[in-house]
């Protein structure tokens, strides 16, 4: 219980309910509303914090974080393609999922820091948003490399920028930035005070979904399972060292580790479905949601925290 946030217990409850084939289900309308809430709330929080910093000072860190983040899909692709003998499309799509980030995993990390009363840089949320782009774009390039230019780049970019998850994050960021802490204050009761409770509710649903994915695991074979556990660990280590080099606080280092370690299951699946339709979504979602997400929630978060303590002490 020391390094685990109580909200994680809701994830566990969902997993148990799912494995026990309970008839519990969160109506999909509620799930969508909770998603919208979380994305907007995170964006708002980030925007408010961002308004307190000189924007210029972020440029260098941002570039470094995005550049290093791009290494994740670039390294994952050949591993999947040649070690895992997967098709080009599948390798690219999975690589993009792991280059991208999970907003919920990030939120659980922030909740842990709050719980431990450890501070962190407010602009981590900006990096969260930025990290989506190289991952998704590289995914398409890797999938299409060497083919006639049939990629619908326009549609893909549209999907990335105006897909609901990025749109809500960026939208929230802008609203928070423009309105500032004072302007947002009347919304605090909804977006900030209820955040953790909504996160708990959301994790309950994530647990139900993850349980339904666990049954598929054996179909993917040992390679994909190993990949889905080793990739986040290596990415997290890379994140902590980079954070130290950039002079971030320990809280920031932990969150950057978590961003690198987490795999997307909202933005990436939709974008890849459109950009790389010949990839099998069951593989990428199964790995990111069925293995990496629970791994990060239960084991990864304490591990990355412990690593950050060890490197920062």
């Amino acid at each position, binding site marked *: 219980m020391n390094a685990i946030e109580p909200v994680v217990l809701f994830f566990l409850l969902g997993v148990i309910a799912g494995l026990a084939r309970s008839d519990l289900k969160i109506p*999909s309308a509620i*799930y*969508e509303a909770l*998603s919208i809430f979380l994305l907007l709330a995170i964006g708002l929080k980030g925007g408010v914090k961002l308004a307190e910093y000189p924007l210029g000072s972020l440029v260098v860190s941002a570039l470094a974080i995005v550049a290093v983040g791009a290494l994740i899909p670039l390294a994952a692709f050949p591993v999947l393609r040649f070690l895992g003998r997967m098709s080009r499309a599948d390798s690219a799509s999975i690589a993009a999922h792991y280059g991208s980030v999970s907003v919920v995993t990030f939120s659980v990390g922030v909740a842990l820091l709050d719980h431990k009363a450890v501070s962190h840089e407010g602009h981590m949320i900006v990096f969260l948003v930025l990290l989506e782009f190289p991952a998704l774009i590289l995914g398409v390039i890797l999938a299409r490399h060497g083919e006639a230019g049939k990629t619908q780049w326009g549609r893909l970019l549209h999907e990335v920028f105006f897909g609901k998850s990025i749109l809500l994050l960026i939208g929230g960021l802008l609203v928070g930035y423009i309105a500032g802490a004072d302007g947002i204050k009347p919304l605090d009761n909804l977006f900030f005070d209820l955040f953790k409770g909504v996160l708990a509710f959301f994790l309950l*649903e994530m647990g139900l*979904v993850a349980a*339904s994915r666990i049954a598929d695991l054996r179909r993917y074979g040992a390679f994909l399972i190993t990949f889905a556990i080793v990739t986040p660990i290596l990415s997290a280590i890379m994140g902590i060292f980079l954070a130290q080099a950039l002079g971030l606080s320990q809280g920031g280092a932990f969150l950057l580790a978590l961003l690198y370690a987490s795999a997307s*299951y*909202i933005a990436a*699946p*939709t974008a890849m*479905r*459109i950009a790389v*339709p*010949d990839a099998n*979504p*069951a593989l990428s*979602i199964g790995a990111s*949601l069925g293995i990496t997400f629970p791994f990060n929630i239960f084991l990864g978060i304490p591990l990355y925290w412990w690593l950050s303590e060890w490197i920062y002490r």
Partner: protein
Amino acid sequence: MSQMKTLLVIVTEAVLERTIIDEVLALGAKGFTSSEARGLGTHGMRSGNWTVGGNVRIEIIGDEDLCERIVATLHKKYDTDYGLLMFTCPVNLRN
């Protein structure tokens, strides 16, 4: 007050809803009816949340001709890569 028409039912991924409807209208359909659905097929379980995505079930009533054109277009463009089921059946349009 009773005309023989063809009913075309399309079940596909919810993410394609707008795309498919644009195609269908461009091909000349005068209307459609759509509703949320879940399902299982060759592309696996589609249970309908943000993560996995659900299906949409689109009904179009039109001349046989129109339905043929729609089927041919959608088949060519979307059938290999997306979950897609299409079936037709003669119906009496009553208004």
